């Protein structure tokens, strides 16, 4: 799969990202969508999804064969049993029993066996020392933490490619469901309980996931991205997640940081190493590097970020962030600061 989302995930590329390219990339993605760029379960990139994809094609071809049988019988009746056809009064119980119960039973038993095998494969949890990602569902975003890092990120999960990674799922409020069609079938997040699943990407790339259990007003905008990358890249990324956020370098960034720390932002958001430790909204320590704003609501660029800060209710009505009374003069600096947090 060659999507642009995949490209955005490459740290090497990110460092020389020209700001104006993003809209263009999304335009390309729109085209790519029609040519297999969707998060399709039929284009698996993970061990779990590949299992299910195999099962699907088995079921699909069986269905085609049985459907052809039924349609042939129906067509026979429609062609030859009209007009002057003589009514026969038999009771072909054997035909009904064999075609309606016997054959389906044999097929279903076989398919059930295959299904059980796949279920067992999906249930095989990763080893005890496997990397663990802690994912917490919120209305309407995903909080992501790692066992080995102090920081948190949101709506973006990085995993090393080729490794089976444990994902521990909790929810802060209502039910959600964790679904990455190209990597792994769903596991629900159950209020009051912890669930586990795993991810194993066979090739690097970015894979879109989305909440699949209706969770309220903005269920539609609760997407996330799983970025599978080589182990070295992953380690570097995780190290940054453990470290303080990048400090401001320019004057504009410094002014933006001031606005951020003194304004209402700090009440809800965290930026590591700055003393800003709000816990209501997502940790923003690496917000500049994320793939989207608002869990897939809009792309992460300066324009959308400004719009989101000013009034996110127009972008994602019902989300927890009220419109921010940021002075128009200060907004550009604030945006610059946030964009610098990578």
């Amino acid at each position, binding site marked *: 799969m060659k999507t642009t989302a995949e490209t955005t995930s490459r740290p090497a590329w990110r460092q020389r990202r020209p700001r104006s390219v993003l809209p263009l990339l999304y335009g390309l*993605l729109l085209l790519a969508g029609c040519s297999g760029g969707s998060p399709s*379960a039929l284009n698996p990139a993970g061990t779990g999804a590949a299992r299910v994809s195999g*099962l699907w094609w088995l079921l699909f071809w069986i269905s085609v064969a049985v459907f052809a049988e039924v349609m042939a019988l129906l067509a026979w009746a429609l062609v030859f*049993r009209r007009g002057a056809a003589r009514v026969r009064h038999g009771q072909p119980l054997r035909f009904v029993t064999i075609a309606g119960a016997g054959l*389906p039973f044999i097929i279903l038993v076989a398919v059930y066996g295959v299904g059980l095998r*796949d279920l067992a494969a999906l249930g095989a949890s990763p080893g005890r020392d496997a990397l663990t990602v802690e994912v917490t569902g919120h209305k309407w975003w995903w909080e992501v933490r790692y066992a080995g890092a102090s920081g948190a990120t949101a709506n973006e999960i990085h995993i090393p490619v080729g490794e089976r990674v444990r994902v521990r799922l909790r929810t802060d409020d209502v039910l959600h469901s964790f679904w990455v069609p190209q990597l792994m079938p769903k596991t629900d997040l159950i209020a009051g309980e912890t669930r586990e699943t795993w991810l194993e990407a066979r090739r690097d790339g970015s894979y879109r996931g989305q909440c699949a259990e209706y969770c309220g007003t903005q269920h539609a905008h609760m997407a996330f991205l799983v970025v599978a990358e080589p182990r070295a890249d992953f380690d570097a990324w995780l190290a940054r997640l453990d470290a303080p956020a990048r400090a401001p370098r320019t004057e504009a960034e410094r002014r933006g940081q001031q606005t951020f720390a003194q304004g209402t932002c700090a009440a809800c958001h965290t930026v590591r190493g700055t003393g800003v430790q709000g816990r209501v909204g997502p940790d923003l320590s690496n917000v500049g590097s994320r793939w989207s704003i608002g869990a897939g609501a809009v792309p992460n660029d300066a324009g959308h970020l400004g719009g989101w800060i000013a009034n996110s209710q127009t972008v994602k009505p019902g989300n927890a962030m009220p419109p921010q009374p940021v002075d128009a003069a200060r907004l550009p600096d604030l945006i610059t600061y946030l964009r610098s947090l990578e």
Partner: protein
Amino acid sequence: MSTTTSTAPAVGRDDLARLAEHWAEPRSLRSWFTTVDHKRIGRRYLVTAAFFFVLAGLSALVMRTQLARPESGVVSPQEYNQLFTMHGTAMIFLFATPMLFGFGNFLVPLMIGSRDMAFPRLNAFGYWVFLFAGLFMWASLPFGAAPNNGWFAYAPLNQVQHNPGLHMDVYALGLLFLGISTTSGAINFIVTALKLRAPGMSLNRVPLFVWAIVATAFMVIFALPALNADNAMLFFDRRFGTHFFDPSGGGNVLLWQHLFWIFGHPDVYIIVLPALGIVSAVLPAFTRRGVVAYSLIVLSIVAIAIISFGVWVHHMFATGLPQLSYSFFSAASTVITIPSGIQIFAWLATMLLGRLVSRVPLLFVIGFIVTFVLGGFTGAMFALTAFDQQVTDSYFVVAHFHYVLIGGAVFPMLAGIYYWLPKITGRMYHEGLGRWAFWLAFTGMHVTFFPMHLTGLFGMPRRVYTYRSEPGWDGWNLVSTVGSYLLALGLLLVLVGVVHAVRRGRPAPADPWEGDSLEWSTASPPEPYNFPVIPRVRSLHPTWDARTAESTTTGATADRVLSDGRRTLFTSELDARTERAVAMPEPSYKPLVLAGALLVFFTAMLLAAYPIAVVAVLVVAATIAAWLWPPRRPDEELGVAS
């Protein structure tokens, strides 16, 4: 083959006049409110359910319009979420079941050769409750207070801290209110079919449609309490601070799902079984022979009714329950497809042996087979846990259950409407209009829902009010929307066809199709007393059977004419031997008053006007007491010893 008994020589003109006098309900406003005639009540069920179908269908059109393009703003997310919830809730609870109960109400007494249901006033009460509960739920929409949590309303999103306002109170109370109607209707169907069958209609001569309705009614009896318990606990959680579904108070959110699906999966068959019964009822007339393998079909109806109680966990395959329970429920869900397979091949065999008469009802039956079989395949796929986890809660499941419910329930209902329209209205429908309606609805259905398999596999979750274009779902969504308008147009033509038939249709003979069951052996539309002579049934296809016909003409006897009152026959439960003639109740206001008092009760509960609710309960109790109050009889008639 068939005989219209209204001209039967054995029933004298005096008898007919007396029957008419005892059974007639004058066309007055009073009679409109007091009627207990199962045919009028059945028609009302059909019309009211169709009305709710239109409302729920229009909700779907708004949703499809919103989803035609990515990120469109036809409706707000809050509006969309109410629309999809009301669409599902109304289609399941206010359309599908009541529509089939409407067919049952009209047809069961006619098919079994009775003059009414076992409890005619309870029947009227059930209708009024259905009407009021439906209006109760829909009335919340203009106030922006409609249910907004999906038709299965999972906890804890249904709790007041996550979902303030009246939305889910309307849901809980509305479904509890409606449940009274469904339960009373189910009891009525079972008792009617057990006790009011014409003499000679032993169990092996009961029409398949009646079998299906009775099996459905039994499922309602044992499934609906789970939903009622669920909703009662939900209402207490929301209103009175209990903790059934609140983990912080020791409750458990999965309890909601277990109880909901213990009801919910049988409910799928509560909808589909009677529709399959319609198919079995329609086919004989259009294949010119009885349905093949009667006993196997009965067996599979009973099997479905029983097994459907053991598959509910397949709706919870992604909740992370133990794998062992998944393997069990997966096996049960796999097995339940087999009885449906038997029925499909029995119908195919019937068509292969008979002579097809290609009229509109047969077209819908064929449309049903094609569509339902496809829905069945995806259904069997969902029985496999691994596959289910991938596609559940995506558009794939939306495609699946619309194939099952439109293919398996709506198409048979449409076949039934065209088939029985002459009987219900006494008018024939317009064949050409019907064909257009079929082809538009059939094409529209597949154009709408087939692409949803794809969008689901491509990762689109259900219940999203919008989507972005990056994932590439735009094209297929647009196709779905176009299809939905085609489907709507087809259904509109059905409506036009019905109105045209009622207004302009040519008068229907008693038996336009040369059908096999008893409703075709009486007038179209039937007289208020249904049958001048209650037939003595001699075979599974009484209207095709000369001896049964003879029992209503030259063989008519006074004990089956019963013209000296508003009377019908009780027969024994298994072999339908005559037990005695019984008097049937007269029209009454009490059903309406009782249903009205319940409406006041539920509205008062909704608005927290508890004193009014108490008063309403007292009115309910007083009405029931007066309803069942024994008439004063002389001691010798009662048999008093001391």
